[in-house]
């Protein structure tokens, strides 16, 4: 278990480094995706099966859509000429170093609570109730409303819709 967590963590970090080391937008995208997949694996190892699988599902979809936009908007997208993902090296190094030091300090400085009692049977249900509680119904209604908005937007944007050529 410890070995699996350590390996997944190390692989996730390695792919994260690769994002900034490769010279092609497509490779950077998929290195980032691989890093996220390792994170999903870590969640699954922690017993959060639903969240872990959801991270895998959402990240694949999201990174694929992002690949389209990144390739579309970036200069030199295909990496046909050497490309660097690094900008403002000194400032970035300082910010990243400070953030890393602060987080590591936090790990040691925070008084972690001892486990009291046993976890609930289904961690997904427990998480849902912890984060939404009595507002579950509101969240579900909002979720459907957001989806309806998405579909309506697409329907309006269609060629035959309100803002199409024929309008």
């Amino acid at each position, binding site marked *: 278990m410890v070995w699996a967590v350590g390996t997944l963590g190390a692989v996730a970090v390695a792919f994260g480094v690769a994002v900034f080391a490769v010279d*092609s937008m*497509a*490779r950077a995208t*998929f290195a980032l*995706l691989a890093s996220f997949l390792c994170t999903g694996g870590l969640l699954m190892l922690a017993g959060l*099966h*639903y969240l872990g*699988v*959801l991270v*895998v*599902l959402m990240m*694949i*979809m999201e*990174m*694929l*859509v992002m*690949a*389209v936009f990144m390739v579309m908007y970036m200069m030199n997208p*295909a*990496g*046909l000429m050497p490309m660097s993902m690094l900008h403002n090296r000194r400032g970035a190094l300082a910010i990243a170093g400070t953030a890393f030091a602060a987080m590591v300090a936090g790990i040691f400085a925070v008084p972690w609570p001892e486990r009291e009692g046993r976890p609930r049977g289904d961690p*997904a249900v427990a998480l849902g109730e912890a984060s939404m509680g009595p507002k579950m119904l509101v969240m579900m209604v909002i979720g459907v409303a957001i*989806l309806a908005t998405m*579909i309506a937007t*697409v*329907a309006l944007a*269609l060629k*035959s819709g309100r803002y199409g050529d024929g309008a």
Partner: protein
Amino acid sequence: MAEVAVLGVLAVAAASLDALLGGRSWDAPWREAARLLGTARRTTVRSDVLLMRTGVVVLPVAAALAAAVVPLGGGAAAGVPVSVVWFNALEVVAWAAVWLVGWGTNSAFALVGGYRFLAQGLAYELPHMFALITAALAAHSLDFRKIAAAQDGLWFGVWMPVAFAVYLVSALAMTFWGPFGHPVGDDVAGGAALELSGADRLVFFAGRYGLLAVAAAASVPLFLGGGAGPVLPGWAWSAVKAAAVLALLVWARRRLPVLRMERFMTAAWTVLIPAVLLQMLVVGIVVV
């Protein structure tokens, strides 16, 4: 792992059936495989071989990993409590595979094919997901085994026909098969798979048959009562039902033309999603 092997056999059978329906001999896929294994790989100028190979290999791997959670009869090879979400996540891996192959070969038509599949995937993933959720909602579980067990007496396919139909249509689209074959369509000279040759081509298309077999097999616990049936044991009924659905999907390729993508995507957004949402509402009211 017997479950995964059975689905592999089904995938090979699907290839044979497709050859038969296409007027060739049943062993045409075998001869094609042997020919591809003996063919030298074609390389394109400045291709990204790493990404292209990743895309090729990831397709059958995703099919096998998805097959691991689909139960034949009682138990699945891997007992994942959220197997429906796992199955869907691995179907989506196909998007990455096709895009990577289309991009990696550095060829214009292949790239067009890769982008087509992304647009198509986005349009069909939502109805697909809602069809899966509808069955999960009725069974109060994201576990294929519990969904199959919840259908004693009345199959979900019978009392939620819209969800079942949407599942089958979107399954065809998610495996870029038959009427939804534009990502590898003839109008772009073979699309994403245009530059694939030799072993690469074999692995890629074998992976697609694998995905098709898994999608057919998953419809059995979702909508067709799992292993329930008289006389025969559970695994046999599961295999028979999966084979029947798979035969239907393969037959659809030979019977239906490749549909115009933008028209059918409009239908996906404006017809399939509202229809399956209404179905979900009905199921929700009945269940709760």
